[in-house]
């Protein structure tokens, strides 16, 4: 069952889809909350999140996919989006899922992709009681990534930042600097299972970012899988199937 849902945070309405296992309506089920990447939405590229959510629902795990403020269908403007706002939305999504019927609130998981991985790693250490985390192509060193993009993109750092024809606010860069490194401090406080999945040929977020998460993590059960020949969003049938299978089996095992 896929239900269209919405919840409010800091004055904006956020829209999402709640996937619920078909056969287990009367019992409490675990739930994974998905955080999409920068310029992405709750379906993610080639509908990776939609497909993974359906797979998890088949395996008895509920999923909430939602659009961060300014992205996808959610209220707000993309140019006002910052990582700080996304961290707030990420927490609000977890609070929201706890209010839903038939969710086992002590069995919540997080999956984050790219910038959503940064948001997920930070949230995992801050939000009490997260039981399992999967980081896909996750950004670990946010400022160094953006500094590179700024220099390559405009030839200088300090001018207006344009992405896909949309101007980002100064606050976007300020927030990256403010939170840079805090994700790595935060993930150390998270001790439950962590799976890191990264494409060996990720041209956006270097594979070293995934390795860094795995290295600093204090989880009692942690694993890193680097998928050969895979790009940033696992954009081929083979690598996508592999990423989906890994994440689905991980949550099945750890939630």
């Amino acid at each position, binding site marked *: 069952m*896929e239900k*269209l849902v*919405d919840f409010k945070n800091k004055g904006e*309405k956020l*829209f999402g*889809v709640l996937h619920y296992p078909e056969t287990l309506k009367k019992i409490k089920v675990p739930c994974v909350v998905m955080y999409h990447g920068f*310029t992405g*939405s*709750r*379906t993610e*590229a*080639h*509908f*990776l999140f*939609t497909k993974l959510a359906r797979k998890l629902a088949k395996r008895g795990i509920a999923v909430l996919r939602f659009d961060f403020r300014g*992205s*996808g*269908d959610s*209220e707000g403007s*993309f140019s006002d989006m910052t990582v700080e706002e996304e961290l707030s939305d990420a927490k609000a999504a977890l609070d929201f899922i706890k209010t839903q019927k038939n969710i086992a609130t002590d069995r919540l998981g997080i999956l984050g992709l790219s910038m959503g991985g940064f948001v997920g790693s930070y949230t995992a250490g801050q939000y009490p009681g997260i039981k399992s985390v999967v980081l896909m192509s996750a950004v670990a060193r946010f400022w160094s990534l953006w500094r590179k993009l700024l220099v390559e993109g405009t030839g200088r750092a300090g001018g207006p930042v*344009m*992405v*896909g*024809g*949309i101007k980002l606010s100064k606050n976007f860069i300020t927030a990256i600097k403010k939170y840079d490194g805090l994700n790595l401090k935060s993930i150390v406080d998270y001790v439950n299972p962590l799976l890191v999945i990264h494409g060996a040929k990720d041209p956006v977020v270097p594979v070293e970012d995934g390795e860094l998460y795995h290295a600093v993590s204090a989880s009692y059960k942690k694993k890193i899988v680097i998928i050969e020949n895979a790009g940033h*969003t*696992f*954009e*081929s*049938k*083979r*690598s*996508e199937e592999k990423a989906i299978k890994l994440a689905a089996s991980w949550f099945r095992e750890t939630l």
Partner: protein
Amino acid sequence: MKELQVSFGDIGREIRGMLHLPEGKGKYPCVVFFHGLTESKNEAMFLFRNISRELLKSGIASLRMDYRGMGDSDGESRNMTVWTQLKDAASGVEYVLRRKEIDNNKIGLYGMHSGGYLASAIAGLFPVKSIVFLDAALNYRAYWEHKVLNGRFGSKSSTKKSLDLNGLQIGNKYLQSIRSSEKRYNENFKEYKGTVLIINKNKKEAGAVYAACRYVKIPAIKIKKMVFAGENNGLSVVSQSRERIITASCRWFESKIK
């Protein structure tokens, strides 16, 4: 202003979308958006969403929806064909015609890339007043032959049964349906009596869309060429002329369906 998530169609085969309604009780003009293949109801960098929000300021409602097999809608992309897309596109128009907030005599369509093909194929079946084609692929078969299949068939991850478009599986029956839908498409488009605005990143492509519209004798065609410096630098029309596209689209519908 109201933005609602909506779904329609049979259980298990539901189409999901976003309905934007102006504030108040009146009956409103409405635009239905058709996205391109591999995209979703937001389109690249949320272009469709931003046009929808701009239309609201002029008191125009809109529906953005995912075809089955795409985005949030039920189904798998490998089962999608042009026929299922046409059916879904028509369901979208039927859905807004059923809503009491919508003025059934003031319907517009918006088609980007292959969504333009779908818009042209169903416009004649409904009381559609105007269409905006954005970088539309009206000659859809030629579009596939030249742009999509070129260099992709036989790539490692493509199998005989499906085509791997950067992780999105498109079945062979989709390719077959492009050919089989062509005749019906031409017949349907001939029935369309409204106006057309063509927005394209270059003159040549705009000319091709114009020729297709002339062929079916559309009475009023306006071309808006989004010509800019560095046209061939590989960036999409969306990132380069985003604000101009939004403004041109909204002013057009204000003058044609309001």
